[in-house]
């Protein structure tokens, strides 16, 4: 009797574990590699430069995109809120600067100064980071978390669900993901669709 209950419990736990594991694989536990990119202050920045970070909010954005232009205050607010908790914001522009003059490095420096960016704004001129992460649009956010010394993507998609009107945001996807991870919980929405301008990859 006892043994049979025990074995039933075991079976349930195993099934649950199996379901959990399979849902994890489905949810794309992608590991991303570190990068070394030039910041608007001229210095090179890598993830390993933040030894105390538990994770990062990495946002692919750019200067020219009308949707990206809506988010600088919200990126500053995210960094204000989460940097001190060990999850800083890093913004990366991977825009094709041949195609779009407004995204050139000197204009990025101007933009960071004008918008008072309180986070690094990195120039991915070889488009290596964007390929590594698989970012599609500007802005496109990733929440990565340190697990066993590796950087695992825990959230991939939009920053929130209303670009133009912050007062009408009903889901703060990035903030919700970071809150869950800080609380040791799983992220509810692991993936949403990023909205904005296509990041054009050079061949």
């Amino acid at each position, binding site marked *: 009797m006892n043994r049979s209950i025990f074995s039933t419990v075991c079976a349930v736990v195993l099934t649950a574990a199996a379901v959990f594991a399979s849902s994890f694989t489905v949810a794309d536990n992608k590991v991303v590699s570190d990068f070394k990119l030039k910041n608007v202050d001229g210095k090179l920045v890598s993830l390993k430069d933040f030894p105390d970070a538990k994770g990062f909010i990495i946002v692919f954005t750019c200067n020219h995109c009308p949707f990206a232009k809506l988010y600088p205050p919200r990126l500053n607010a995210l960094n204000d809120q989460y940097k001190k908790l060990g999850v800083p914001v890093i913004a990366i522009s991977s825009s094709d600067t041949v195609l779009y003059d407004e995204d050139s490095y000197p204009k990025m420096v101007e933009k960071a100064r004008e918008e008072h960016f309180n986070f690094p704004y990195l120039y991915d001129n070889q488009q290596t980071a964007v390929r590594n992460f698989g970012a599609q649009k500007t802005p496109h956010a990733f929440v990565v978390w340190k697990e066993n010394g590796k950087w695992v993507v825990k959230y991939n998609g*939009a920053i929130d669900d209303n670009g133009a009107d912050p007062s009408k945001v009903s889901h703060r996807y990035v903030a919700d993901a970071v809150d869950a991870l800080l609380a040791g919980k799983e992220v509810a929405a692991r993936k949403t669709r990023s*909205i904005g301008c296509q990041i054009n990859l050079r061949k």
Partner: protein
Amino acid sequence: MKLKHLIAIVLFSVAGYNSFAQYNNLVIPDTISGTTFNLNLKDTFKQFLPGNQTVTGGINSDFWGPTLLFNKGDTVHMNVHSYMNDSTTVHWHGMHLPAVMDGGPHQIIPPGTVWQPYWLVTNQAATYWYHPHLHQMAEQQMTTGLGGFIIVRDAEEAALALPRTYGVDDIPLALTSRNFDATNAFLCCTRAYGDTGMVNGTLHPQVTLPKQYVRLRILNAEMERGYNLGFSDNRSFYIIANDGGLLNAPVSATRIKLLVGERAEIMVDLGGDAVGSSIDLVAYNAGQEFGFGGGEPSATGNFGSLLNNRNFNVLHINVGATTAGAITSVPATLASNTYLTTADATVSRTVTVTDGTPGPGGLPFQFDHTLYNFDTINKTVVLGTTEKWTVINNNVFGHAFHIHDVEFKIVSRSSHPVGAYEGGWKDVFYLQVNDTVTFVAKFNDYADPIHPFMYHCHFAPHEDGGMMQQFVVVDATGVGNTEKPSGDFNLYPNPAGNKLNISLTDPAMQVYYITITNSQGRTMCMLPRPQLGNGIDISAYAPGVYFLQLTDEKTKQSMIKKFVKE
């Protein structure tokens, strides 16, 4: 008794709320008039649906563009400034102008560039439009919302008692539809037909129009759907203009079919309607002949949509108070057009719709088994010739045939006699399945052996797929006259401040094209046949080295000179 009242009040307020929530006020595009027109093309966004905004393309706006008011006889100068992420072109649909100003697939505007075409407006008063025409990108760029109306006015039209107070009794209506994805982004371009209709970028639009005759300038701005338009009470209306001008006399109708790119101006009498009553402009699209875009019965899939093969409301019209100076009748005669006839034509051509085989490995629709090729001139027309073109479609689907440069007269149609509704000047016509349409056109004024004009199906997926060909108009007396060597030119001052001047060594030399690029190869401006009297404004350029490429009008040879901006 009290309960009944309460129910009545509740019902009334529910109905009131519904009608409030159901309709959005029709956007009337702003106008620009005068002779200089600044158009700024940009990537932007608009709130179409609750939740996130939709990324759009706008021209001086967040969707669609301003209505350009031209006067016949004016020379209009366009400053087309593209702030977009992509290259594009802007085509002046229906305008008779030099090919180098036409904005077809060859006049590509790179991002960050200003393109400055100009031309003498010789078109008759009617409703025209402008839209992107970059090959294989037309559907995508038009889907974002890029485009706008052109209204030409002339003395003949001005002398008539017609409604012409823009936005009051003279209303432009650009009909189209879109598909939205889960993030409210426009879906493009796998499905030919949108699930959600819109007019001037307004979903579920309503407009209040005065209790009198009103004039609707209707454009089918779709990708592929046709509209069979009428009013919800089947009242008669008058068709007063086709694509390229007023008809000689108004044509009474209860329905009008408009395929993609076609325009019609209609007058409808609201004088007998009560103020506060309403009526709908309806697309009676159920049960159309096969080959009518959007007649396919499916609700889903690449050629299905929720609006297919059914009647749907296009615009809810509320009748408001009569205005001062109201138009209360339709003039018996409108214009005295002298139309071309078959007897005028000295050259006959035939264009046959071919291919369009469905399924994997199938070929896209094309003309005469020849897909569009950027570098191939398919037809050469001698300047001043009147030609008869016969377009044959014994193929599997309908099309909207459009030709640049000219307004033509349809002289015969095999599917049915040429209707009075299409009896005026046209630049697009509906080519049905098993239809042969013949039109006559005169190719006047503008010869250019380099820059071609287009003729194509205006269904954006067909055009992008290669159902488009090119023709040049050549001056028979000047063909091959390239013996004369190009003259030379100098730039001054160099280094330059705000103005750059050009001096031509040979005073007889004419400039065909000037392009200025910066040291990174980025195009700063494109100036077809520039008027150089006042120099070129370079005040907005960053200091640095620039290259000016000048192409000689006669020899079409290009020379490059360097200058420095201080």
